[in-house]
Structure formats: C-alpha cells, structure tokens
C-alpha cells in the first residue's frame, strides 16, 4: 500500500501501491492563494513510468487525462508508477489521489 504520510504534504495526494496489477499515483495540486483563488494555471503535467510504456503508454496517458478531466482537474502535476494496472485500476488510483490532494489542500487553506 502507499506510504500515507506523503498525503500530509499540502496539495498532494497519493494512492495505490507498487504491487502487481496496481499503480502508485501522486497528484500535486496548486495551493489556493491567500485571499482566495489559485496560483496561475500551469496545465496538467503527466509523468508516466511503466514496464509496458511502449505498448500501453498512450492508452494509460489517455485514461489518466480523461479521469482528470472528469474531475475538473486542469492544473496538476501527476506522477504514475505503473505495475501493470488495468484501465479501471489506473482510473481509480488517479481519482483517489485527486480527492486526497483536494482534501489536503482544503485542510491547509490559508
């Protein structure tokens, strides 16, 4: 399982694991600025590492980006370490990481 303490970083959410058929996903969202609003949008930066990058990389990237879009995430750093996750697993881990990142950013709202 993931090392939960990484979720304690404001704006960061971690989900998944390095187990077979899973993926470890780290999502970092921009923190809200004091007085409201967020920092300027830098778009989505996606870093993907997988043993099957050459064959499945494009599809995995698409699944991750579609999941982010469905969650209205337009500005985030996303790092995925894949260990053979199916699409449904990857989407679940990305969604969980986003929700945890949002919760963490909310807790640390200035």
């Amino acid at each position, binding site marked *: *399982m993931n090392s*939960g303490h990484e979720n304690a970083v404001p704006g960061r959410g971690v*989900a*998944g694991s390095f*187990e*077979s*058929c*899973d993926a470890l996903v780290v999502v970092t969202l921009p923190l809200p600025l004091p007085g409201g609003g967020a920092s300027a949008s830098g778009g989505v930066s996606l870093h993907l590492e997988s043993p099957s990058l050459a064959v499945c990389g494009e599809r995995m990237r698409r699944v991750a980006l579609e999941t982010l879009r469905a969650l209205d995430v337009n500005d985030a750093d996303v790092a995925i370490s894949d260990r053979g*996750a*199916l*699409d*449904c*697993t990857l*989407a*679940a*881990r990305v*969604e*969980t990481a986003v*929700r*945890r990142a949002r919760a963490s950013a909310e807790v640390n709202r200035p």
Partner: protein
Amino acid sequence: MTTTLRRSSLYVPGNNPSMLINAGIYGADVLVFDLEDAVPFAEKDAARILLRNALSAVRYASAEVVVRINSLSTPFGREDLDVIVPQRPDTIRIPKCETARDVTDVDRAVGELEAASGIERGSIRFMPIIETALGAWNVMEIATACPRVTALNFGAEDYTADIGAIRTKDGTELADLRARMLLAARVAGVQALDSVYSDVADDDGLYEESRRARILGFDGKSVIHPRQIPVVHRAFTPSEKEIAAALRVERGLAEGKRMGVGVVVVDGKMVDAPVLKRARKVLELARAAGALPKEEESSCR
C-alpha cells in the same frame, strides 16, 4: 423450484487490484468483495473507488457478486452504499447486525439509491452477518426484517470474543449460534451460511467443519483463500452415493403412488414424505451444482 448455489463465498479484499480482477477464475459460487475488515481505515476511500470501477469493468461469469459494506454506524457505511449500489451488485453483506433496524436502515438507503439509479426497487438482496451476542439473540427478527434478506451469515471470531467464549478447533462455542441461526433462516425461508475456517493450510479440518455444517443444514461456507473452494464444494455437493440413494427414494415413492400407497421400503428402510423432501433437496442441490447424471436432469425439476 430452483436452488441458489452458495456452497462457497470467497472473501476478496476491496483494495487489492490483482485479487479483484482475478476473483472470478477460481470457481467460487459467491464473491464477497470486502470494504470492511480487509480494508484499513486509511484506505477506505481508495477501496470504494477501486471496487466501483472493477464492478463496472469486470464480468464475474456466473458468480453472485456480493459487497460487504462497512456498518452504517461508521463514517464509511453510507458512502459505501452511495458508490456501490449504482453498480448493481447482486447482494449487500451487512456486518454486525444486532436488530431488525440494522437491516431496515440499509433497506431504506438502498431503496433510495435504486430509485435514483434506475434499478428495480428491491432487486438488491441482503446477507446480514451475526457477530455479537445481541445479534444472535435477535437473529429471528433480523432474518425476517425485510424481503431482501436472502441468507444469514455469522462471524465466528467477533461472536466468540463478544460472548466471552474460548475459540476451539471443533467449534463447541458456536453450537448454540449455529442452531439458532439455522432455525431462524428456515423460518424466514432464507439460506444459512457458515463462517470462515481460518487455518488455510488445514484442508482436512476445513472439510470436516464444512461437512458438519452441511449435516446441520447449512447451505455453504465463507472462505478466505481460493484453495479452500474445492474443499468446501466437495463437502457441500451431494456425493454420487447420496444422489443415487435420493433417486431410488424418488422412484420408490413414485412407484408407491402408482400402487396407491404413501409409504414404501427403499434399501430396507421405510420411506415417506419427509424422506422424499430430503431426497429432493439433495437432487436440487446436485442439479444446481451440475452433479446430477445427465439422464436424470429432468427428474427433479
């Protein structure tokens, strides 16, 4: 009459992608995807989302899909239902049931979610789990709390801890609960499923406990490892000898009926209506399990 085959119920941890995806390949009659005890507090959110996605993406062939939610008395139970019910699981396993209200509260929530998700109201069934002294005391009201209840289960470890008993290999401490639960299930017209056997390496012990449960009238048993499935199936599937004897009873009474008598002798023993009832149960179970000889397929329909 059809028999719902629930010889084995395989617990599958809700936050393990590999096990969620492969759960269907082991041949369990029932798959119990667990959001409760198998998932630590810090991973409840992750398991719920992962299981939702798996249920919408993976087809589990003929297995009954059951989800064990967290109790509604925890911060997780209601959200489990919100996320899982729209995926149309066949059945919800409700932990730590102590009163009828523990069932009717889930019934109300599931009913609302079925309506909101376009699912026929009442189609999702329930399996309450008895895990405490109070639950055991109230097992009859739990079994009859709502038409969704389709089977009763119990949690041996929690129950023995709650009543202050010593956990033994032969299950002496569970005798009263098993008897009570079985009677409540039969009065309610639902199935009774035995608890897990936690020594995964002991096939002989598992078979013996399963066989004794079947003798008591139980319909199946929960398992915690795929290797336990064939052992449990062997115990809960009628043997060729049982099937042959049941067929002789059925034929003997049919012959007696033709001759105008209600009691006949088969294999040197008196056979009447209750014996036929038991024989028919054996044949129904054998047919559901695919263990009936082909030429007999139509005889017990």
